[in-house]
């Protein structure tokens, strides 16, 4: 592991935060011609789902374990999918859920590649998608870093990183 990748509290690790933010921005501009701006990150003591649908990946990068969640309110994901697929959605259907899974896969893959080039050891993972309300139970979750991401139409979605 390089000096840059020395283990610190992952929630304060700039490499990690930048990799996920860049992965999201790169994916959305390439696949959906959608520009994003990133808001001020904040920490929450426990995970709360912020949207109507979310993609989730278990992150394993020994000794770190955590969860990456991308939470989309309806307005944000509908806007992205309009640009990406040319289709209009009005409800969080199974097609929308599938697209959230694929987007999460690309966000994670892009970040993983950048981070592993810096000496991290992130492993491959297959994302899952959740709709409705859920929580990450206390014995699995620590604090959550929340990074708000804003689209051009002013709707927002959230990158949420919980580590143990």
């Amino acid at each position: 592991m390089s000096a840059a990748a020395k283990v610190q509290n992952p929630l304060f690790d700039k490499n990690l935060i930048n990799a996920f933010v860049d992965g999201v921005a790169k994916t959305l501009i390439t696949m959906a011609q959608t520009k994003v701006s990133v808001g001020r990150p904040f920490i929450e003591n426990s995970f709360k789902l912020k949207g109507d649908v979310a993609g989730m990946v278990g992150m394993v990068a020994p000794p770190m374990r955590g969860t990456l969640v991308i939470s989309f309110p309806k307005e944000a994901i509908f806007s992205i999918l309009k640009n990406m697929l040319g289709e209009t959605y009005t409800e969080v259907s199974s097609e929308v859920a599938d697209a959230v899974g694929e987007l999460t896969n690309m966000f994670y893959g892009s970040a993983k590649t950048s981070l592993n080039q810096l000496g991290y050891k992130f492993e491959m993972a297959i994302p899952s998608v959740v709709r409705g309300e859920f929580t990450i139970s206390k014995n699995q979750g620590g604090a959550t870093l929340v990074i708000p991401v804003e689209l051009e139409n002013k709707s927002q979605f959230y990158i949420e990183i919980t580590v143990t």
Partner: protein
Amino acid sequence: MFPANTKFLVIDDFATMRKIIKKTLSELGYTNVEEADDGATGWPLIEAATAKNEPFGFVISDWNMPKMQGIDLLKKCRADAKYRALPFMLVTAESEQKQILEAAKAGVSDYVVKPFNSATLKQKLEKVWAKVSQAPKAA
């Protein structure tokens, strides 16, 4: 470039990505496209198409899938003389050196890294066609 009637097999566990690839292929004039959601369902389609004498002319497969991964399907194809020269492109969300080397060693025709746009996919298809059309024909 590959003839317009080339039969494609697109394999990805996410229907969204299959839709994006199919849309790009359609824009390039390729409409003879079948789909599978992982390697385990893709392999019998490859076998059945060959048995019917309507073989696939190109496989585009995701790497990271449940059941059978894209790299394992590629290895299965290359281990069978019938599919040793079948153009096979892997799609991956990761572009790490060790992965690229593993794919090259397994005999991949080319790979495309997600996220990608239609121009990138077209460029990759052209690159594979250049290789295929220059390869000596089997006796």
